[in-house]
């Protein structure tokens, strides 16, 4: 039987989608392979344990790793409550027909697409200089919190929007107050979606370099931060610094740093996915 034009189009479309998918996967695999090949000789327990050094073979990533963990945790502490609460207000309480509210929503969406360097400049002016936090973890975290806040707000709004109205009405019809409806029904139902936004944001915080360079993450910090006001460095800044040196050894060091960065990224995402799964239990079975 002769295949019709539509049948040919059908297979052609499927094949091209498949080809494009595999192409990106292959490129990613080549990249990872290259990094592992270059970095594995430096990857050791000592590498995680050592402080930075001018000699490549003695240099470690400990300060950057600890710095990244500090920055990620503090940023999450600021951005998640503010972001989710804002989304709840905008979606559940504010008058959606109000022009002002619509204006705010559009601008939050715009902020989510702003280049991160601009947040860096804002952080430098506001937190480092005006509030006098200096080149501290606190200043860096607040800057990154501002950076990811729009992403968290937008994904949370979408997640809350996706909760069917019938659930809200069922709750109201049982005499629930609005806060009980929001906290007891809407938020738990929206949590998987909200978690997705949080995962995206955390990944972005871990990888973000530019604003932290401006806010003053150091490339050489010889001690571990002990509180939020200490100087700090983070993994991508350390990697950037190593990659910029002329010696070949430092390039391998940078590759090892990237492997550690990926490890942190994957484990953070893994935790978030587990939390999301736990709450998705009741979605549909």
């Amino acid at each position: 039987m002769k295949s019709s034009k539509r049948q040919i189009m059908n297979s052609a479309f499927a094949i091209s989608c498949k080809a494009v998918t595999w192409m990106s996967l292959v490129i990613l695999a080549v990249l990872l392979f290259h990094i592992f090949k270059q970095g594995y000789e430096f990857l050791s327990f000592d590498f995680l344990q050592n402080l930075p050094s001018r000699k490549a073979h003695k240099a470690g990533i400990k300060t950057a790793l600890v710095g990244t963990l500090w920055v990620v945790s503090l940023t999450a502490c600021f951005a998640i409550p503010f972001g989710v609460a804002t989304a709840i207000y905008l979606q559940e309480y504010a008058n959606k027909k109000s022009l002002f509210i619509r204006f705010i929503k559009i601008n939050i969406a715009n902020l989510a697409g702003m280049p991160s360097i601009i947040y860096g400049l804002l952080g430098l002016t506001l937190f480092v200089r005006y509030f006098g936090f200096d080149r501290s973890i606190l200043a860096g975290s607040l800057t990154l919190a501002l950076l990811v806040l729009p992403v968290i707000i937008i994904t949370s709004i979408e997640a809350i929007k996706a909760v069917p109205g019938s659930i809200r009405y069922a709750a109201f019809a049982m005499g629930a107050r609005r806060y009980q409806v929001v906290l007891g029904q809407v938020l738990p139902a929206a949590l998987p979606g909200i978690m997705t936004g949080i995962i995206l944001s955390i990944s972005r915080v871990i990888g973000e370099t530019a604003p932290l360079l401006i806010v003053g993450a150091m490339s050489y910090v010889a001690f571990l931060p002990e509180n939020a006001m200490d100087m700090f460095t983070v993994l991508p800044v350390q990697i950037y610094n190593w990659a910029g040196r002329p010696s070949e050894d430092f390039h391998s060091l940078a590759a090892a740093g990237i492997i550690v960065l990926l490890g942190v990224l994957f484990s953070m995402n893994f935790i978030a996915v587990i939390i999301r799964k736990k709450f998705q239990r009741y979605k549909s079975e």
Partner: protein
Amino acid sequence: MNKNIIELKKVSIFYGENRAVNNVSMHVQEKKVTAVIGPSGCGKSTLLRSLNRMNDFVDGLRIEGDVLYHNKNIYRKSVDAALIRSQIGMVFQKPNPFPKSIYKNITWGPKINNHKISSYDELVEESLKKAALWEEVKDRLHESALALSGGQQQRLCIARAIAMSPDVILMDEPCSALDPKSTLRVEELIKELSENYTIVIVTHNMQQAARVSDKTAFFYEGELIEYDITDKIFTNPKNKQTEDYITGRFG
């Protein structure tokens, strides 16, 4: 003679400029099933939702006249609508269980209303038994309510309403999303429940009204055309329009 638990006095309801319910006066008797019938768009669901102030969530809706519940107007400013809703339960057209376990679906309402419950396990069992669902779900109380069939979900919604020990249960076409077998079960359930609860049921299924209700109100274009004992409405209606509707000449 049962006493009147709800009384409507010259109630009109408007969506913006449109009048959905026009000058309706009627009463609902305690521990009886009152059916509200009429063609689609006759204002019967709007009227039902005005009895527990679920209309408050509709933009641009305005109500005139008095809705008396135990002789008190529930639209006075001092009335706490949430409290009214905790006493007048509601079962919706489409089953809408919470995306939680069967157990939590039942216990959530009493919990947030600070009801004094000595044993939640007993409350769950009792409510599910009253809703004729216990036997089917007793082994999976902690599984998702969304895994139940449509008919089971609707009975869970009824159990959820019963767990609040309400005075009145409002039902807004509770069987319209169900298959005939589930419909029959829910109808049997409504009859059983009427021994202990006052039920107001909106339906566009006339046979259903005839099967389950004690009194029937016929609405047409927002007006109460006839309200009487169900047998009378279906065998000997006074009004020509009612007769035309129940004999299937229109609607």
